[in-house]
């Protein structure tokens, strides 16, 4: 692992277990997007895993992702699941090579720049909201 980042470490509570979902949630609720960078293949992810989804490496470094990035694809959902009111927009956003799925406040197009503006909360599972 490379040198630790204090902005990340404060959510990890000194755990050696790597980035847990609990830590990821806590950070998101403080408007910090955490993710992982693979020391072996370089893949960057916004969804913490126990091993790299691309190469299987266990050498994953917890990282803080930028909070602004570019829309890779998007859809406007007019028939929402229970617990959401439609229509609303969902996008895949690229944040310095890490891609995440997120809600978006308004209609956007592929290539648009967006930034983190808040958190969607349902059933104790927060999701990032961009705008």
């Amino acid at each position: 692992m490379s040198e630790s980042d204090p902005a990340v470490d404060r959510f990890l509570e000194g755990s050696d277990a790597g980035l847990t979902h609990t830590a990821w949630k806590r950070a998101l609720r403080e408007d910090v997007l955490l993710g992982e960078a693979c020391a072996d293949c370089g893949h960057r992810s916004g969804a913490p895993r126990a091993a790299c989804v691309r190469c299987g490496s266990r050498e994953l470094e917890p990282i803080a992702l930028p909070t602004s990035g570019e829309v890779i694809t998007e859809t406007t959902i007019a028939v929402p699941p229970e617990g959401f009111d439609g229509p609303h927009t969902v996008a895949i956003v690229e944040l310095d090579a890490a891609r995440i799925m997120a809600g978006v406040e308004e209609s956007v197009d592929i290539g648009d720049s967006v930034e983190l503006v808040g958190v969607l909360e349902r059933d104790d599972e927060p999701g990032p909201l961009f705008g």
Partner: protein
Amino acid sequence: MPRASVVGAGMTEFGPHDKTLSELFAEAALPAMADAGVERGDVDALFVGNTLGGTTENDTHLGPKLASHVGLAGVPTQRFEDACATSSNAFKHAVRAVESGPHDVVLVGGVERCTPETGLDTPEMTKAFVSAADRQYEQPAGITFPGVFGLLTKRHMHEYGTTEEQLARVAVKNHANGTLNPRAHFGKETDVESVLDSPLVADPFRLMDCCPFSDGASAVVVASEAFADSFDAPVDVTGIGHATDIVPIADKERLTATHSAREAASQAYEEAEIGADDVDFCELHDCFTGAEVLATEALGFFADGEGGPAAEAGRTELDGEIPINPSGGLKAKGHPIGATGTAQIVELTEQIRGEVGSRQVPEATTGLAHNLGGDTATTLVTVMEART
């Protein structure tokens, strides 16, 4: 080389049914057993698929329940759940169990109730379906399954110029095929204008781009190579591929590739010793029109980016160069989730036997089934061929 043979097939009409899961399953399983000419005592095991019975009806442990209902209590049985790829996964295991494993004859099928007959409304059922997406890193964004495929298809439109009209042509074709299938959920033709005028579900998909919520069941009897000749109308399974991909979709290498389909197809073609060019017809997982476009590319029928233009040019119609979804597909035949995989196998079997009447593909000797689960994370590809 045959891995196994399908020696009996049965399915219900797809659409709303006021019946229990067991009753629905029996209406596919008992005809499949009758078609094969097998009875209790001949069937070594039951492999069953169901995705949502626990969530929608508080009904789990369906293996022994369905076995009891059709008179097979006692045989080993297990329930598979792999989202929309559920019963083709059960089918794969049944094929492997007779190919090299302990069984000679296996009954395999799927059953699902998705219509408001369950008592659940559209938002509740939409939430149940999205249980197949990542619980922590996708569901909280308010995603739905039309939305997942909307994201993939919008990217495809961006990269390749695929158009809404091309997507609509997929729906028009599958509805036309569905009018020829008495078991189809929808029996009416549609046209491009009607598709484009239907209400938005998840951009770029309108209601008529989307498969319906259906109830239904399907089942086939699988026999080992050694036993197949003792049946009347065996159709051989010559290749199966099964691959998975990364969850969540944001971490996939290429959003438009449906990588698990490419890998599963490659395995199936290799096992069957054929290529995409050898396939006479295909049942594929057109949960949304865009999914069919992506799948026709992933399976190697068309180059990347050519799926939309190919649909528009009629190349996938019943009399086209590669008929796609002669049954009407999920779009028109319907999509009772856990029953869809083996329903594709039923169509392959009956097409290759030459039993499907006005939707018969001429000289249908090699058929391919493509069944996709979740956010393109599971794909099963099956090759079936006329017995020679």
